């Protein structure tokens, strides 16, 4: 199996008034190509810090990250990032123009940009709202635009930081189902941060369980439940129990 992402002994330390704090300590993992990996852990386990290092917003104070075999240095169009906050969309651009942004940065001509953007809005079932401004869309719709925006310029890796955490339970379930479909259709490698065990078991083929203070790897596991997954099936509940065992020592 090809490895899309490889993190080798990464640590992240930041300075505070009270001295240096070690947020992430010697974390190593690898993600298979086109796999869906969930990073699961309690608050303070450094999962967002790990995502920020993958995205290139932060540089590990120790260790190295390889994406597609190349060492990560800063941001790059080989990665797409979806944040938790709905406010990530540009309010002055319509949904379509938001999705076009990455293509614009690449110098793609307007007509082609438009076509690609509409294609990716269709992928998240929002083509009817192409000309709506973000404030006219619900939270779930805004997150769908954000997903299609980060896919439109065709990155190899999609990084997602608890994108559905601020949604209501029903919308969240719909979004998880939709995301699974989008992932299967686009064959991206996904790293998905969450603190929700059921969500992780629903989405992931690979699971990285972290412990807090400092963030260290508690367990790495593979989930090969058939898809689409049924959250009420015995295997699903069994898998959740298995994962929980690692979280509650």
């Amino acid at each position, binding site marked *: 199996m090809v490895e899309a992402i490889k993190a080798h002994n990464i640590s992240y330390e930041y300075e505070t008034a009270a001295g240096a704090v070690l947020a992430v300590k010697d974390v190593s993992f690898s993600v298979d190509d086109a796999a869906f990996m969930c990073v699961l852990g309690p608050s303070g386990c450094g999962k967002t810090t790990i995502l920020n290092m993958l995205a290139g917003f932060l540089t590990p104070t120790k260790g190295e990250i390889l994406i597609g075999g190349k060492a990560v240095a800063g941001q790059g*169009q080989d990665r797409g*990032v979806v944040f938790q*906050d709905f406010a990530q969309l540009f309010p*002055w651009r319509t949904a379509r123009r938001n999705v076009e*942004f990455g293509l614009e*940065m690449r110098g793609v001509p307007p007509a082609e940009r438009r076509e690609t953007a509409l294609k990716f809005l269709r992928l998240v079932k929002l083509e009817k709202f192409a000309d709506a401004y973000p404030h006219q869309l619900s939270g779930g719709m805004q997150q769908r635009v954000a997903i299609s925006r980060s896919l439109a310029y065709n990155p190899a890796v999609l990084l997602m930081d608890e994108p559905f955490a601020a949604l209501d339970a029903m919308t969240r379930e719909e979004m998880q189902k939709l995301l699974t479909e989008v992932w299967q259709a686009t064959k991206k490698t996904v790293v998905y941060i969450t603190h929700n065990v059921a969500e992780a078991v629903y989405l992931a083929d690979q699971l990285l369980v972290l412990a807090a203070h400092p963030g260290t790897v508690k367990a790495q596991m593979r989930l090969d439940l058939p898809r689409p997954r049924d959250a009420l099936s015995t295997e699903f509940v069994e898998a959740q129990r298995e994962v929980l065992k690692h979280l509650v020592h």
Partner: protein
Amino acid sequence: MTGTARFSWKAFWRGTAGVVALMVIWETFARSGIFSAALAPPLASIAISLWRMLLDGTMPQHALYTLGRVVLGIALSCTIAIPLGMLMGRVRAVERFFLPPVSVLMPIPSLAWVPLFILWFGIGNTATILVVIYAATFPMVYNVWTGVRSVNPLWLRAAAAMGANRRALFRKVVLPAALPFVITGLRLSFGRAWIAVVGGELLASPVWGLGKVIFDAKEFLNADVMIAALIVIGAVGLLCERVVFQALEHATVARWGMVAAAKR
């Protein structure tokens, strides 16, 4: 959300009632005999003067001169204030250098500079427009500076993740994101400039200008003309605020949901 504010008769009558009350108070005051009719003219004679000056075209011409000075002054002020505010918001060294002088100059009333401007440039347009520039620049600098600093860091992060370089970040993120503050800056600048221009014209204007009308009318004890000019000053100011700035807001930041649509 309310896209464009609708015209409502209820709001219209409420607004009219306030103006009528003001007129009644004035009329009572004018007829009370505290001042002679020449000093506190009744509404009818104010209306006649206003009508006469509107018809013979002098009042519109005065108003156009005044408005022209304000527009020119604000335009010139923007060429200084917008780049300066942007740079102050983005470059720490520029902020450190310019913030103290801006803070010192800002609270000085622009009219306090008029005598000096007259000494330098004589009576006329130059001195008046300089006053406008002075009045308009600081609210603009201050708002642009604040606007640039208050850009949601998440937008910058998202744009950087999508491959935006520094130039694209500035043009496609910082600039539109700061627009609500830029428009507020323009509004405040206009308000300050409108006050300053009339004062400037009182002291330094040659022939045309609403301030000049008041100044000249005082020489001839024409209180009705003075008040007619005051009414025009108020009306033009209100019209600009309502028509120009609200339209600008509705077309941009209100449409984008970045500010609540202003009530009409």
